[in-house]
C-alpha cells in the first residue's frame, strides 16, 4: 500500500464556544512544532478532525497522514501493522511488510484509541518515541523514522496509570501537548453551528432543495438534548431527518430514550434496573446509528457511566455528601470516589 499524497482539505472545526475557539487557537500555535500531541475526548467529539487539522496546518501536510486504530486489532497484528515484519517472521508472513512507522516517515501517524494498547506494545512504542528507531518483527536491524505521532483516546489515562493499564513514562511522552475536546453537552451553543454546517454539507450531497431542514423550534429542542454520542450522533440524527423530514418523531424518540434524572431518595437503583433497556441505560439509542458507528465498547461505557452516576449520587445523597462514608458503602477507595464525582460531573446540591 502506498500512502496517499493527495492533499485534501481537513474538515473544518465547527463551533464558536470558548472551548472550541481555544482549540483552534491551540492548533494554530502547535501544528508546526512536531511535538507529540495527545487528543482526548469522548467518542464522537471529533478527535480525528482535530488531528487532520494539525496535519494540514503542519509543515508535513504534503507528506503522508496515516491512522491506526489500536483497539481494532489483536496485539500481534497491531505490532506488525505498526512496525512491519520480515518475510517468514511468523507463520503466514509470506512476504516482507512495511509498518505504519516506516510508511508515515516524514509525515504524521495518528494512533487512535491509544488507551487500548497493551502494556507490551506500549513499551515498544515508548522506544520509538525515545529513539526514533524501531525493529520490524523478525528483523534485528533498527529502522530510523521521523514520524510525528499524534495519539487520541477517550480513556482517562491518568486513571489507567493508577490501575497499571498505561505506562506513566509513555503518558508523559505523549502528553507534551494535550488537546481536550469537551463533550457536546458542555457546549450546546455549538449545536446550531453544527446543524448549519451539516445542512450545507448534505444539501450539496442530497441535491439542493431536496433536504428537510429542521425548523427553529426543532433546533432549540436539539440543543436541549444531552448527545451522549456527541457530534457523530448529531450528524447521524440530522442525516436521518434531512432524508425523511420526520423531525417531530426523531425528537420524541431522542427524549424518550434520554436517561431519567437522578433518583429521589425513595427510589432504588434496583427498581430502575428492571425496566431498563440498553438505550435508557446507556442514553444512546444505538438503533438510530449507522451499523458502522455501533461500538459495543462505547455503549457499554456509556451505560456503565450512567449506572455509576446514579448509584453514587444516591449514596452521596443518603450520606449527606459524606464522601468517606460513601466510599466505604460503595466499597471503592476514597480517591476513586473523588475521581468519579469529578469525572461523572456529580454536583453537590445547594
Amino acid at each position, binding site marked *: 500500500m502506498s500512502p496517499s499524497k493527495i492533499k485534501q482539505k481537513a474538515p473544518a472545526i465547527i463551533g464558536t464556544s470558548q472551548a472550541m475557539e481555544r482549540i483552534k487557537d*491551540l492548533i494554530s500555535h502547535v501544528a508546526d512544532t512536531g511535538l507529540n500531541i495527545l487528543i482526548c475526548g469522548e467518542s464522537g467529539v471529533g478527535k480525528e478532525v482535530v488531528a487532520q487539522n494539525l496535519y494540514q496546518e503542519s509543515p508535513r501536510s504534503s507528506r503522508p497522514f496515516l491512522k491506526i486504530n489500536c483497539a481494532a486489532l489483536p496485539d500481534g497484528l497491531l505490532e506488525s501493522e505498526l512496525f512491519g515484519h520480515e518475510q517468514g517472521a511468523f507463520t503466514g508472513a509470506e512476504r516482507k511488510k512495511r509498518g505504519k512507522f516506516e510508511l508515515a516517515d516524514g509525515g504524521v501517524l495518528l494512533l487512535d484509541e491509544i488507551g487500548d494498547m497493551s502494556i507490551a506494545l506500549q513499551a515498544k512504542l515508548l522506544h520509538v518515541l525515545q529513539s526514533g528507531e524501531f525493529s520490524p518483527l523478525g528483523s534485528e536491524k533498527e529502522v530510523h523514522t521521523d514520524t510525528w505521532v499524534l495519539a487520541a483516546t477517550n480513556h482517562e489515562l491518568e486513571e489507567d496509570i493508577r490501575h497499571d493499564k498505561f505506562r506513566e513514562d509513555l503518558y508523559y511522552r505523549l502528553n*507534551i501537548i494535550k488537546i481536550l475536546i469537551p463533550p457536546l453537552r458542555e457546549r450546546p451553543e455549538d449545536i446550531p453551528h453544527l446543524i448549519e454546517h451539516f445542512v450545507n454539507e448534505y444539501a450539496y450531497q442530497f441535491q439542493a432543495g431536496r433536504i428537510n431542514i429542521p425548523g427553529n423550534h426543532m433546533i432549540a429542542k436539539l440543543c436541549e438534548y444531552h448527545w451522549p454520542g456527541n457530534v457523530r450522533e448529531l450528524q447521524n440524527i440530522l442525516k436521518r431527518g434531512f432524508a425523511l423530514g420526520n423531525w417531530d418523531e426523531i425528537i420524541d424518540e431522542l427524549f424518550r430514550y434520554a436517561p431519567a434524572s437522578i433518583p429521589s431518595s425513595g427510589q432504588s437503583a434496583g427498581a430502575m434496573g428492571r425496566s431498563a433497556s440498553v438505550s435508557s441505560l446507556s442514553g444512546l439509542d444505538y438503533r438510530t446509528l449507522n451499523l458502522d458507528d455501533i461500538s459495543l465498547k462505547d455503549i457499554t461505557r456509556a451505560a456503565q457511566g450512567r449506572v455509576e452516576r446514579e448509584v453514587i449520587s444516591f449514596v452521596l445523597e443518603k450520606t449527606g455528601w459524606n464522601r468517606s462514608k460513601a466510599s466505604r458503602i460503595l466499597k471503592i477507595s476514597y480517591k476513586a470516589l473523588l475521581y468519579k464525582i469529578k469525572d461523572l460531573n456529580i454536583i453537590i446540591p445547594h
Partner: protein
Amino acid sequence: MTTSPLARLLIIEDNEEVLRSLKKYFTKKNYDVVTASNGLDGLKVYENDQDGFDLIITDLVMPNISGVAIISLVKKKSPQTPVIAITGWGEHPEALATEAQADLVLEKPIELDRMDRFISDLLKKK
C-alpha cells in the same frame, strides 16, 4: 529612587497561588516579571514579545501546552536562554525536561531564596 531591573523573567505556572508568590518575590528582588497562567498563554507571550526574556521559569505539568513543550520550543528558538522547570511532588516528567535541555529542574515546594541564587548563577553564566 528606582534602579533598573536586574533581568526580565517570564514565569509560566497554572497554580495561581504559586504564580502570585513567585511574581511578588521576584518583583521585590528587582526583576521585571511577566507571567502567564497556562502553557498556551505563556507561548503566546514568548512568541509576541519584542524585548526578549533573560530567563524563563515554567511549571512542567499544565493543561494544553506542557512545560516540556515550552522548554523544547524556547531552546529551539534561543538555546542560550536559561529555562528553569518546576515540578509538583509525585509528578515524573523531570527526565523529559532534562532531555528538552532545561537548565535546572526544581521540585515544589520551592525555596524562593534558593531559586533566586540559581537564577543569579544562570544569568551570570549566560
